[in-house]
């Protein structure tokens, strides 16, 4: 059996094991051990991948393929390159920290959580367009229940909105995928094989647009991002973590793996439209965050800005910028998970997320507050933390273009770093510093051990990338070779 399938099998086994008992201790044991094993498996995949890479020049490693539905040439085809390995690592880290942040949740919550994990890992290992899409849907559906049942506030509305918008994206996507399959000859669904075939240019235009928008909805592409603030605000802590930390990366990864890789020529010609849209996302998200008063809304708009930068960089079609895009996915995934877990800590104690009702929490819960400051610094791109590395790689890479249009856009995108500083410091100053506003808050306790665990684990990952970026950067840069060959054909 292929080692990659283990990543899907463990969550599946957990799901089945959870169905047996309702005992809370049992549930906790299953999910912590299970997601611990997933993390171990992800690390094992990374190690095996690095060993294989040293001896092989194939674009995809650890591949295997089994026929699933022959008439449409659908296979269960798996394989990874450096980028998917990093995404798998990111997902497993966020998944286990999410478990610790959802320490007091009931069994049924974790059943859906495991299903979500199956979808996520299946998506990142898939090489077959159809199975990829299938796992994509598997990852999206549980979101409806996780928010609708265990969320708070306007949860039904938010769950419905999020699911419907993402489903509309999926409809675009399915059309696009079928378009790719049929216009490329109708002989294979395998991405690597498809990349060797050519899709006629007149078809590339509409297929590229459909696929890019389809994935873009999940990547918070302007103007399809409005599910994000409501969805994040209503979702329970660990679902927000997983959603912003991992699911939004499904969008960026898909744009890169399917839209750009299979239709590089259309990407060349249409990129300007989407560059404008993503450029708007970057700046608009940042400005949108400035006046928000709900901690989760601030973070949701910040995600629109940061994820917009991912798509922005991918569309620059330069190797350095794309490297930056992948780094930004990692960085944003870790950082935003950290943010949401800490917002969860604060909310579970103060029972409010309105920054006008809080103040001076540094005195009350120093541990959580210091972590929040670190997360804020990561978000505003302080050197030594991951955000700086990814943003600088993106800016330098995007500026490599000689045409004025892309350079001016890059400069506009860089202005977001100032606005980011404004909303981050405003939040930090308001919530953590200053005198304690609400005397009731003085009685609140600091983070519990399980909450501390997730915060520390995430901070360590953020700092590791920030302090020693060259290892990760190298893996990504190498893995971009096939894409660059495709792009450089034109």
């Amino acid at each position: 059996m292929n080692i990659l399938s283990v990543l899907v099998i463990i969550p599946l086994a957990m799901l089945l094991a959870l169905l047996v008992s309702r005992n809370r201790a049992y549930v906790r044991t299953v999910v912590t051990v299970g997601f611990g094993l997933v993390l171990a498996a992800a690390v094992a995949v990374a190690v095996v991948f690095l060993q294989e890479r040293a001896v092989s020049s194939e674009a995809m490693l650890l591949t295997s393929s089994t026929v699933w539905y022959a008439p449409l040439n659908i296979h269960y085809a798996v394989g990874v390159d450096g980028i998917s390995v990093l995404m798998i690592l990111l997902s497993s880290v966020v998944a286990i920290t999410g478990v610790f942040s959802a320490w007091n949740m009931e069994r049924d919550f974790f059943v859906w959580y495991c299903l979500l994990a199956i979808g996520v890992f299946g998506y990142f290992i898939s090489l077959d367009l159809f199975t990829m899409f299938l796992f994509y849907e598997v990852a999206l559906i549980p979101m409806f229940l996780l928010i609708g049942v265990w969320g708070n506030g306007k949860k039904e509305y938010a769950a419905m909105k999020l699911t419907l918008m993402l489903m509309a994206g999926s409809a675009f996507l399915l059309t696009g995928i079928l378009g790719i399959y049929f216009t490329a000859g109708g002989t294979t669904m395998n991405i690597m094989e498809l990349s060797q075939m050519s899709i006629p240019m007149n078809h590339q235009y509409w297929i590229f647009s459909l696929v890019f928008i389809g994935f873009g909805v999940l990547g918070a592409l302007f103007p399809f991002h409005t599910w994000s603030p409501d969805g994040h605000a209503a979702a329970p802590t660990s679902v927000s973590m997983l959603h912003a930390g991992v699911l939004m990366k499904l969008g960026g990864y898909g744009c890169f793996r399917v839209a750009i890789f299979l239709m590089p020529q259309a990407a060349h010609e249409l990129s300007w439209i989407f560059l404008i849209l993503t450029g708007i996302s970057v700046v608009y998200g940042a400005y949108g965050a400035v006046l928000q008063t709900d901690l989760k809304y601030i973070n949701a708009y910040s995600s629109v800005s940061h994820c917009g930068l991912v798509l922005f960089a991918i569309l620059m079609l330069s190797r350095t910028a794309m490297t930056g895009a992948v780094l930004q996915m990692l960085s944003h995934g870790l950082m935003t998970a950290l943010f949401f877990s800490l917002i969860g800590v604060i909310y579970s104690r103060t029972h409010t997320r309105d920054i006008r009702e809080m103040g001076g929490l540094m005195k009350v819960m120093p541990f959580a507050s210091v972590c929040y400051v670190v997360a804020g610094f990561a978000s505003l791109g302080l050197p030594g933390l991951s955000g700086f590395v990814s943003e600088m790689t993106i800016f330098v890479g995007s500026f490599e273009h000689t045409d004025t249009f892309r350079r001016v856009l890059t400069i506009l995108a860089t202005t977001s770093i100032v606005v980011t500083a404004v909303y981050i410091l405003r939040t930090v100053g308001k919530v953590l510093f200053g005198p304690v506003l609400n005397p009731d808050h003085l009685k609140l306790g600091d983070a519990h051990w399980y909450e501390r665990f997730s915060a520390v684990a995430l901070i360590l990952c953020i700092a590791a990338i920030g302090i020693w970026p060259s290892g990760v950067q190298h893996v990504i840069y190498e893995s971009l070779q096939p894409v660059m060959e495709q792009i450089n054909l034109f």
Partner: protein
Amino acid sequence: MGFTVYIILVPIVMFLFLSLGSKWLKPRTAGIIGTAGMAVSTLLSYFTAYRYFFVEGQQNGVYAKITAFTAEWLRFGDKLHIDMGVLLDPISVMMLVVITTVSLMVHLYSLGYMKGEVGFQRYFGLLSLFSFSMLGLVVATNIFQMYIFWELVGASSYLLIGFYYTKPTAVAASKKAFIVTRFADLGFLIGILILSFNTGTFDFGLLTADNASLAVTTMSGGSFLGLSAATWAMSLLFMGAAGKSAMFPLHIWLPDAMEGPTPVSALIHAATMVVAGVFLVARMFPLYVFAAPDVLTLITYVGAFTALFAAVIAITQTDIKRVLAFSTISQIAYMMVALGVSGMGGHAGEGYTASMFHLFTHAFFKALLFLGAGAVIHAVHSNEMENMGGLRKYMPVTHITFLIACLAISGIPPFSGFFSKDEILSAAFQHDKFIFAVLWVVAGLTAFYMFRLYYRIFWGAERRYDKHPHEAPAVMYVPLIVLAALTCVCGMLPFSKFVSSDGAPFSAGINWGIASASVLVGIAGIAVATWFYKKASDRPARAAAKWAGFWDAASHKFYMDEVWQFVTKKIIFRCVSRPIAWFDRHVIDGTMNALGTMTEKASETIEPVQSGKVQTYALVFVFSVLIITVGVFLL
């Protein structure tokens, strides 16, 4: 000289140790450990200076750029890569000495000043973090490393200004400082992007070699909006420098930054961080001279205006730390002007040497002024002049050391400020008489406001003090004495033998004509201040009333804060952010919701069709069949 890397590593290790271990360390232990760590860095810096200037530095009679350590940190593609390393050349070695000395003095002083404060361990951890960042900045081998440490310096300054985080004014000040400098850093970053794109390198060595020929050949063309790439890049870099070094109009954060603990103001907002901008311009100096001389003119005028502007405001301030803050702005502007009027090589490069010399002397006497002010604040528990007066009897050591620093900044020989200021004035005189005149006036104003400060603290009418003011403890006054001693002697250094624009030592004598002019104006300033402030009288009030409008405007810092407030609050918040937030919720999200509602409405409209009545279904069925049949026949 690979050991130099430890100068930087020791403080960062101290930071990690002190901040992670703060729970388990006693405040006193933490303070002593932090100070000891800084002492190690200081000794290593002195040793580096000795090795560099007297043993290894010179090659063929010229001080060379020595890369003591370098390692690739991040690669951006085939050409560009960020390295982390240690570059030794006259200015970086000089900065190592300045930073570690002042930092060590501030560490020592803080042991006394911060005693009993909550978060004592955190304070020392942050001081170490700041020292690490500042040292990393000055030894940077490439412009991106400099930018990285530049940002870290900004962040540690933010944390230190906001050290008293329960105090709303401190929180607001720290936020303002960070955001204003961040805005300036945006210019720095874009400048780096343009520069590196054209030249294909970040490396200082390659950029400045052979009179910046690389930049001259690659960047003189390619005009955008009528300016060459080089002019764009170098002006944007200067924007970054102006932000950190508090040049008009980006100076607004520095006076507010005085909300931080006073030793922090001495270290960061007087001696080290705020001169980073001057250091950046000095570091890129060949590019300015050869690739973008227009920008150098801009620097000169911005500097001269800032020097005058800040000096005028300093006269009217009543918070002693704010007087010092405006004085710092004015003095740094002096250094900027000196770079602006400088040429390259030999005596033409006198301005460059003068600028670095003034940076060097200013660091000591300004740190001394701040630490002295700290001792005063410590004694009377207030920053306001009106709560002081007649303190010379109670605090003799502080009084004498403060007086020395005041004489130095006023340019009175034989104190250090005289020598460096004279050099700046003579460089300006050779370049542009108008600029010289402005600086000369500023020199007089400086002497006036410094002695106004001095008299109002130590002379004048004695206040009724709640508690008897007392001299600071030894751990606080020893640093004062050390810095005062440095202020007395460091002006005598033959600075041009060590630091020059092209690395070749030359001898810069004292221009006695200009020196006497500057001493005269200094003495005049002191005399006027004595007449006004030595004894309590109504003379200052009468003079202020006579110039009421001007006095009012100056004491409100010429309303620059209000202007910026208007730009941020009214324009950016109200005209950009709020409409965007509204647009997002109502237009974009409204469209999405409308789509949902429309779908729902549409399904409600066609709902009656599925009525469940078989008769209706049959009727529709029959009619449909009829219509289709007729239709088919007709076609």
